């Protein structure tokens, strides 16, 4: 009888392992990676061994990949830092399997129980359907936007809430190219429904290791300051190496402009080292912007003066006014850049406080095929400001203004351009 019971138990265990192979390996490896690389050897007072011991049995009991991810998520959450996440290696739920390569061509921000349209791509299906910046979206495919944040804890940080609502909104707005999304918007006291086609998201596809495919967009345009001078606006949506040449070309184009505006609103970060190259367009001497503190090293992010073109032509760095635009979806490398430039007085920052998720991180493949994003360093700006949890506080706070957006204005950019005029 005892033998039979043992056999049954063994069969059950075997069946569990077959249902979720490598669960414990995956949990152990995630724990070990953090144990090896987390920047604070004291683990911020968290007993990291005890955390493993407490949660490992739950990992062993996990029946699905999502259950295992939830357990690892609870382990990582004990550190209370940003830049810890599990990215599924393969689709495991119906929601994961949705093709989200198509976009209707607009961006939003959380706005109370609704979503505020902050930008509509020129020539996009959204624009053709009549959507405008400043519109308020109250439902997506019939589901009220008030539900987007319904499952979030009441005590969650307001910026994190806004970020999670944005993510949830994007999950619903995106879908297969060629499909349509129903967007209910409130305008002029009435509600109307727009059926908007999704098209392939514009931009350059970037494949970098285990990361999911990324779309790089660099938008460059000339605008007039209030006094009629020319300013260059350079915006990019992610810090990927392919942006470097395009930004360099844009700076070259605006080398004689009255000012340059770097638009990092909605830019969540990327390759942090790039802040040295991009900032170098605005410094004629090697200048420390901030320090990355790992467990064993302190590495300084220096602006690397960009005094030559690829063909070897010498150039002067841009020495005019530089404005940086940020908002609550500006994160990570974008924060290190904006905070660093602000700290040394080389740029003036406009908009709303950034994410406050500014830890340099790495990523690693786990045994089950998922990818672990994990913080490996802290970051402080050259004036000693720690950005994690705080964010970059703009020099000029310019809140979202639906009425201004609806009238075709961009108050954050307007404030930057007015400052550029004052500086010259």
């Amino acid at each position: 009888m005892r033998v039979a019971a043992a056999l049954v138990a063994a069969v059950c265990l075997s069946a569990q392992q077959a249902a979720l192979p490598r669960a414990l390996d995956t949990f152990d490896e995630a724990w070990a990676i953090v144990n090896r690389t987390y920047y604070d050897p004291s683990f911020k007072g968290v007993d990291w061994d005890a955390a493993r011991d407490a949660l490992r049995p739950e990992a062993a009991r996990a029946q699905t990949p999502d259950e295992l991810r939830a357990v690892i998520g609870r382990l990582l959450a004990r550190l209370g830092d940003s830049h810890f996440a599990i990215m599924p290696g393969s689709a495991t739920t119906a929601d994961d399997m949705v093709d989200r390569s198509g976009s209707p061509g607009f961006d939003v921000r959380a706005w109370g129980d609704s979503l505020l349209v902050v930008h509509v791509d020129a020539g996009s299906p959204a624009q053709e359907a009549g959507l405008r910046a400043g519109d308020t979206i109250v439902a997506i495919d019939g589901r009220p936007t008030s539900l987007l944040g319904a499952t979030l804890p009441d005590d969650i940080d307001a910026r994190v809430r806004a970020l999670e609502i944005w993510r949830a909104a994007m999950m619903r707005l995106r879908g297969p190219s060629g499909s349509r999304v129903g967007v209910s918007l409130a305008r002029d006291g009435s509600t109307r429904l727009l059926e908007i086609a999704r098209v392939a998201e514009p931009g350059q596809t970037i494949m970098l290791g285990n990361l999911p495919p990324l779309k790089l967009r660099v938008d460059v345009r000339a605008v007039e300051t209030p006094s009629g001078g020319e300013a260059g606006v350079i915006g990019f949506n992610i810090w990927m190496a392919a942006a470097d040449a395009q930004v360099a070309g844009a700076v070259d184009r605006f080398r004689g402009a009255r000012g340059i505006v770097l638009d990092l609103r909605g830019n969540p970060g990327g390759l942090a080292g790039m802040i040295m190259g991009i900032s170098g367009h605005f410094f004629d001497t090697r200048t420390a912007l901030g320090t990355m503190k790992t467990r064993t090293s302190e590495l300084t992010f220096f602006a690397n003066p960009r005094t030559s073109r690829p063909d070897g032509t010498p150039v002067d760095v841009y020495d005019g006014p530089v404005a940086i635009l940020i908002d609550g979806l500006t994160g990570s490398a974008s924060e290190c850049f904006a905070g660093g430039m602000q700290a040394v007085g080389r740029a003036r920052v406009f908009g709303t406080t950034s994410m406050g998720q500014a830890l340099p991180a790495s990523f690693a493949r786990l045994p089950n095929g998922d990818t672990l994003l994990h913080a490996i360093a802290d970051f402080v700006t050259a004036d000693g400001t720690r950005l994690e949890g705080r964010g970059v506080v703009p020099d000029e706070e310019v809140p979202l203004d639906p009425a201004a957006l609806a009238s075709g204005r961009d108050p954050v950019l307007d404030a930057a351009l007015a400052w550029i005029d004052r500086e010259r």
Partner: protein
Amino acid sequence: MHTLLRFAVLVAIAATGLSAQEQSAGVTPEARAIIERHLEALGPDNPSVTSMRATGTLAMPAQGISGTVEVISARPNKALLKAQIPGIGALESGFDGEHGWSLDPIMGPALLEGTALDQAKFDAAFDGPFHDLSRFRSLIVAGTTSFDGKQVHQVDAVNIRGDKSTEYFDVETGLHVGSVSTRDTPMGPVEVTGIIRDYRDAGGSLQAHELVQQMMGVEQVMKIERFEFNVANADTFAMPPAVKALIK
């Protein structure tokens, strides 16, 4: 000859000959014996070899990043590395005998300065670190330990620049199998563990075909698939125009 991973971010491959070593006051007889055994294990030097080109792959396995790499070195102290990494692009670095430099889409073009330049110059020596023991202030055997799964002799080294490192030599084969050192990068000093594996014959002596760097919890692996000799010419180590323009 052998190959040796020396740069932390830049990488150079240098060839080490078997020529006679000069006396160095801080090199103990025990350490000298270990190094002579290593040089002997590598095989005979070929003085007619003036340059070497190694090609293969450069990867960060945990991150799923992999690309191609080409490393060229020449007597007496020139080195060039070119890597092509999908998602990042072209990474180049070098030392032309006078200037150390790098060019990539992360930092843009840059000239090495200060201690990073000094270290690049030291590392670029074609004959490698152990060919000429006068390059060391001291080499002292600290005992045996385990490293990369092998029983090794541990030799504590201080080079003529004052840089300290811990060097490991396989007890069984005598070969140099790795080191732990602090590397000067343009961002500051970083502790790097270098692992040297897979010695095989190339050009009549042993060359390491796998070089691993571990720093800040990240591992980078270079695997060499092919060695060629005497392939460099006068233009091989010329700096890219964007870098050359930085020289004042």
